[in-house]
């Protein structure tokens, strides 16, 4: 299977102990089961991608006729959510992906880091202290404490510059957290356990994909997809180290 990611749901956070006895904050994700619902190709669409759908119970009346036709074309189960993912081409040029293929959490076997996108928790109309981390004023002696102060000069320029940070709607936007370390894969229950927090509330839908830019190799650490810099390697070889 060579799709770069799949869809899932945030279950919640907890703590797990690693082999050293240290506690790790982890997020448990329900990853999949997913199914490939359509293949986009260079010839017909201008790019290669796989449309992947999350298989979850959907009420029949919630589906449009267009959606039903889309699923009936390839005898697919109705899916709740669909998203396109890049296809990884293997060495022999084949992709090994066809419509109707299952995409399961075993996709992340051997993957060290993943990127996770979700919709962040909505904060409503938030003030500047919460929204932009303004310091606020002194809390006592008759002061206002959650206000921003001045928003510019006087008769010149007689206007507020664009981009001035003010209060407004906060949250409920798509947020991607990159390079979350994969701590475990549970194939029986389709669970993925990653270290750290994931955007969004519990039961929120998330897009899980293999890390686009995994951390570079450091001393005693080997991340996935770490490329050796050929320039530095040749210099090192010339030095005779």
């Amino acid at each position, binding site marked *: 299977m060579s799709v770069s990611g799949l869809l899932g749901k945030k279950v*919640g956070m*907890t703590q*797990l*102990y690693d082999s050293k*006895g240290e*506690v790790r904050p982890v997020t448990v994700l*329900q990853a999949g089961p997913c199914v490939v619902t359509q293949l986009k190709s260079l010839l017909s669409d201008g790019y290669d991608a796989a449309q992947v759908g999350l298989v979850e119970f959907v009420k029949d009346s919630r589906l449009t006729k267009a959606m039903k036709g889309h699923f009936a074309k390839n005898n697919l189960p109705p899916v709740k959510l669909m998203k396109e993912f890049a296809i990884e081409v293997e060495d022999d040029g084949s992709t090994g992906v066809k419509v109707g293929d299952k995409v399961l959490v075993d996709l992340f076997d051997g993957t060290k880091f993943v990127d996770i996108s979700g919709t962040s928790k909505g904060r409503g109309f938030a003030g500047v202290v919460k929204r932009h981390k303004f310091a606020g004023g002194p809390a006592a002696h008759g002061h206002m404490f959650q206000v921003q102060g001045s928003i510019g000069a006087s008769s010149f320029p007689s206007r507020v510059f664009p981009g001035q940070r003010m209060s407004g709607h906060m949250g409920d936007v798509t947020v991607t957290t990159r390079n979350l370390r994969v701590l475990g894969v549970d194939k029986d229950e389709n*669970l993925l356990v990653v270290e750290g927090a994931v955007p969004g509330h519990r039961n929120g839908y998330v897009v899980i994909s293999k890390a686009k830019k995994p951390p570079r190799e450091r001393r005693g650490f080997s991340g996935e997809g770490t490329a050796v810099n050929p320039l530095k390697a040749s210099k090192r070889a010339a030095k005779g180290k």
Partner: protein
Amino acid sequence: MSYSPIITRLLAKAQRTDLPTFAVGDTIKVHVKIKEGDKERVQIFEGIVIKKREGAQPSFTVRKMSFGQGVERIFPQASRIVEKIEIVRSAKVRRAKLYYLRALRGKAARLKEVDRVK
């Protein structure tokens, strides 16, 4: 905090099954792995179990008197720093949490010993 059933099952899988079952009031020896630099050694913490926390993430608290000073240590049951546990003796207790031992010293802090069927 209540966990979703999925996390409860996941945590149940992460629990250790190799530790013996003991009860509140038991005196136990906890063999704790201690890392110093790159060397590892085992230290024994011996005391009375004054509390057991049940649920998805169980833990237990062991209390001992160390040079006249009460010392309590909380061990998470899933943690790997506990190498093994030995049960030294069991006692008859009428409480689930033996916090009253904190106020007692010397002879008053003794518990009535019983032979528990192993």
